[in-house]
C-alpha cells in the first residue's frame, strides 16, 4: 500500500457509503483509478459487509430452527416433497385397503348366490350371518 493510500482510505470509504462530498469523491476516485491496492481494499470491504450480513442471517436461521422448529417457509424443497410423497402413499394405502375389502365382500356374495364347491361352501359359511 502506498504511503498516500492511508490518506485516501477514509475518503474512499465515504465514497463507498455514498456519503462523500463532491470534492472528496473526485479526489478519492482519481486516486482509486491509479491504485490497484485500494481497489482491492474496497473489494475486501464489500466482502466484510457481506460476511457480517451472512453471520446475522445464519444466527437468525439457526435460532428459528432451534427455538420454534422449522417453519414451512424454511423447510427445504426435498423435505416438502418427501412429506407430500408420504401423504400420497397413506391415501393410496387407505383406498387400496377399502377397495380390496369391498371386492372380497362382493365376491363372497356372488359366490354365495351362484357358485358351488368346497371353497365356495367355506365362503358361504363365512357370510352366513349376513344372510
Amino acid at each position, binding site marked *: 500500500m502506498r504511503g498516500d493510500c492511508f490518506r485516501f482510505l477514509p475518503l474512499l470509504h465515504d465514497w463507498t457509503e455514498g*456519503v462523500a462530498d463532491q470534492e472528496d469523491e473526485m479526489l478519492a476516485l482519481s486516486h482509486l483509478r491509479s491504485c490497484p491496492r485500494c481497489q482491492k481494499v474496497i473489494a475486501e470491504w464489500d466482502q466484510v*459487509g457481506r460476511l457480517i450480513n451472512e453471520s446475522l442471517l445464519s444466527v*437468525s436461521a439457526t435460532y428459528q430452527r432451534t427455538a420454534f422448529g422449522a417453519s414451512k417457509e424454511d423447510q427445504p424443497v426435498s423435505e416438502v416433497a418427501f412429506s407430500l410423497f408420504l401423504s400420497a402413499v397413506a391415501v393410496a394405502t387407505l383406498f387400496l385397503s377399502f377397495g380390496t375389502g369391498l371386492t372380497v365382500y362382493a365376491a363372497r356374495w356372488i359366490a354365495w348366490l351362484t357358485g358351488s364347491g368346497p371353497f365356495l361352501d367355506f365362503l358361504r359359511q363365512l357370510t352366513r350371518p349376513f344372510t
Partner: protein
Amino acid sequence: MEEIRLIDRAAEGDRDALQILMVRFRPRIFSVAYHLLGDREEAEDLTQEALLRAIDRLPYFDARKGSFLNWLVTLTVRLGFNWLEKKKREGLLRAFSSQGESWSETADWDPNGFHPDPSNDYHRQQLIRLCLSRLPETQRSALLLRYGQGMSVREISELLGVADGTVKSWLFRGREALRVLFKEIGLL
C-alpha cells in the same frame, strides 16, 4: 401491508397477531442481540426485554418512519447499549475492552487444541462473531445496523443520537479493523 395490519391488530390487543409478530421477528432480534453482546444467554435475555418493550410501545410505531424490523432493531440496540454500559460498570465485561491481544486469545474454544477452518460454515460464523466481539460496541453496532439491517449513515446517526461524521468514522474504523482481522484468519 399484511405486516401493517398485524401490527395494528396487535396494538389493539389482538394476542394472535402479537404472537405472529413475535415469532416472525424474534430470530432476527436475537441475532442482532447475540452479535452485539457476544453471549447466547444474555442475547436471549436482551431479546426478551426488547420484545416486551416493543409490545409496550407498539402503539407508537409509525410505519412512515421505517420498517417494523428496523424499529425493533433500534429498540434492541438501545437496550443493548444500556446493557453493555451496566455490565461495564459492574466490571463483568471481559473481552471487549481488552487491548493488544490477538483474536485467538479471546476465543471461546481452546486455541491450542482446535484450529477453526474458515471454509467450514459453522467455524466461519464463529470466527466472524469473534472478530466482531473484538471491536468497541459503537463500531460493532454501527456495522450491524449498516450491513445487517441495511440502514443508511443518516438513519444510524439518528438512531444512536450522534453526528453523521461519528457514524462514518465508526463504520470506517470497524470495517477496516474487520478487514485486517478477516485477512489474518483467512476469511478474506
